[in-house]
């Protein structure tokens, strides 16, 4: 076999198999990045959670000790409870977003600008949102107390009261999230089949019943995405807590993600193993939703 022959067969092999080679080459860089920065770290975190490690010296294998400690850790318990609160209350963003979307789904002049402005909070960093709401709640000069005072109520120290602080942060979190859901629903409403609405109108459906029986079922894809992003948002809540209360007062606004950070990299923390164990728990919670999401996507793919 001469060199040119070999080249030729090489070339034709490539030619003949380009349907196989091409996707591999296209996938490779992205996949590599993803493996190194996402998949492997997940596995490593799980591994670290079985060690005691301050991030400086050599890790000590301690088996399930970190998890056992979690079971008796009050702060962890508070974090889980707060996470549940986040999960449940954050979902209010969905009806909230729907409501605003319905309000804005008109074609009057300038409505595009209004829609964008309503979407505004989502574009702003959570750090700024947190700051803005901290001032809003400020017990001495906050707008909230100014308003409450005007109607003869208050004052309340939302972020200083362990019974209210978490809710206060969730409200701040809802602000951009509602905007996000709103935009999802606006795009969803765009895709609603107008003939179905007309058919329903002829069928005598109006107002709420139209919404419930005809519109909402058609908005299912939007609702699904809104649900997913809201759940993710709820479980990722970190920036706001860090900016608004720093976990306080006395740890009452901690959630898993924040507690994990505190334990692993915080001022007094550096318990990497323990932090990893918290992260694993958070991951397991998330896994439920990931599984649900993949499952519905799989059904969709199969149906398509």
């Amino acid at each position: 076999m001469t060199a040119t022959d070999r080249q030729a067969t090489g070339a034709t092999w490539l030619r003949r198999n380009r349907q196989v080679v091409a996707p591999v080459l296209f996938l490779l860089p992205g996949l590599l990045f993803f493996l190194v920065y996402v998949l492997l770290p997940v596995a490593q975190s799980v591994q670290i959670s079985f060690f005691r490690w301050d991030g400086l010296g050599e890790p000590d294998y301690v088996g399930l000790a970190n998890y056992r400690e979690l079971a008796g850790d009050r702060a962890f318990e508070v974090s889980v409870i707060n996470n549940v609160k986040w999960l449940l209350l954050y979902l209010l963003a969905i009806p909230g977003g729907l409501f605003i979307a319905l309000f804005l789904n008109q074609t009057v002049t300038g409505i595009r600008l209004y829609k964008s402005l309503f979407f505004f909070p989502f574009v702003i960093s959570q750090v700024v949102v947190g700051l803005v709401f901290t001032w809003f709640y400020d017990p001495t000069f906050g707008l909230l107390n100014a308003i409450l005072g005007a109607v003869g109520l208050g004052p309340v120290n939302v972020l200083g009261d362990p019974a209210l602080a978490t809710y206060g942060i969730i409200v701040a979190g809802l602000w951009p999230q509602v905007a996000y859901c709103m935009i999802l629903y606006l795009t969803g409403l765009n895709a609603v089949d107008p003939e179905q609405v007309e058919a329903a109108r002829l069928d005598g459906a109006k107002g709420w019943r139209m919404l419930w029986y005809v519109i909402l079922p058609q908005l299912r894809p939007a609702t699904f995405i809104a649900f997913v992003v809201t759940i993710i948002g709820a479980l990722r809540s970190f920036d706001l807590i860090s900016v608004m209360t720093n976990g306080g007062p006395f740890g009452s606004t901690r959630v898993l993600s924040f507690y994990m950070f505190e334990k692993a990299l915080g001022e007094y923390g550096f318990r990497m193993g323990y932090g990893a164990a918290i992260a694993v728990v958070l991951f397991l919670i998330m896994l439920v939703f990931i599984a649900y999401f993949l499952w519905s996507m799989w059904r969709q793919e199969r149906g398509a």
Partner: protein
Amino acid sequence: MTGVTLEKAVKKYGETRVIHDVDLTVEDGEFCVFVGPSGCGKSTLLRMIAGLEATTAGTIRIGARDVTRAEPADRGVAMVFQTYALYPHMTVAENMGFGLKMTGHPKAEIDAKVREASRILKLDALLDRKPKALSGGQRQRVAIGRAIVRGPAVFLFDEPLSNLDAELRVDMRVEIARLHKEIGATMIYVTHDQTEAMTLADRIVVLRAGRVEQVGAPMDLYRDPDNRFVAGFIGSPSMNFLDARVTDGAVEIPALERRVEVAASLPPEGTAIVAGLRPEHLVLEPGGTLEVDLAEALGGVSYAHLAGPDGARLVVEDRGDRRAAEGERVSVTFEPRRLYLFDRETGLRIR
């Protein structure tokens, strides 16, 4: 009495008028078909009757009742959409029963009506399926079933068959005809399909640019069109139009090298007019000045496309076993009574 009457109905979108003073009466129990070129306002008119578009001016009556400002649901009409507009998340039975449910009918009554409708449309086996699991024809049947269930006085159809393939379209057409016979309600039907219009209609309304051009029974429109537009629109393949001139009290058609004496009241000598001849009324004769450009054999019938020396083109229906071949030179003949004449400017028929 549940006919539909339109009096000087007008529809404007902003400043553009898309329906101009339409006067129309659809009798009780009549099957009325709207035809016309795309964009002429067929759907708009239908939707005005349904109440899905506000009527800018004029009056719409259903039966004796003025419904110009009434809600769609209160007009006693049902509509079948081109895209079926079935609710994808409901089963067939739920789709059909939805209207009654919304108007608060008891469940038992709804069930009975749905069953009755599904019997008429042979949908019994499908009642529990979702629309996704139905074929196009079945979906359209469900859409019709949904209309039937509500027992409306007037059915409105907007190109209900145009999303179906040719075969199914034929079947569904026959089905709709049967349905009309069976329930006898007033039906208004929009289509751009010749065959549907001709075969289904008691009366056809020909629309053009928001105006009614002619109203009449299908064969009347075919035989006796009022103007060139209607003549060209009804009949397939279309009528051939040829330049003609009034000479010596007769009509001369240069392209066919013929002069025809007609009974019509012709315009003054020398006036240029238009002669109309349907392909099926022309007979090919071998030899002549016309060349067969293309011969399309469809089995039982062929269409010969002819070109004259002066650029005139016409289509001739060719039947029988001996058919014209491409490139052949031919001439055509016709019975003078088959000749239609139109004013060159206004397009109005010269009778």
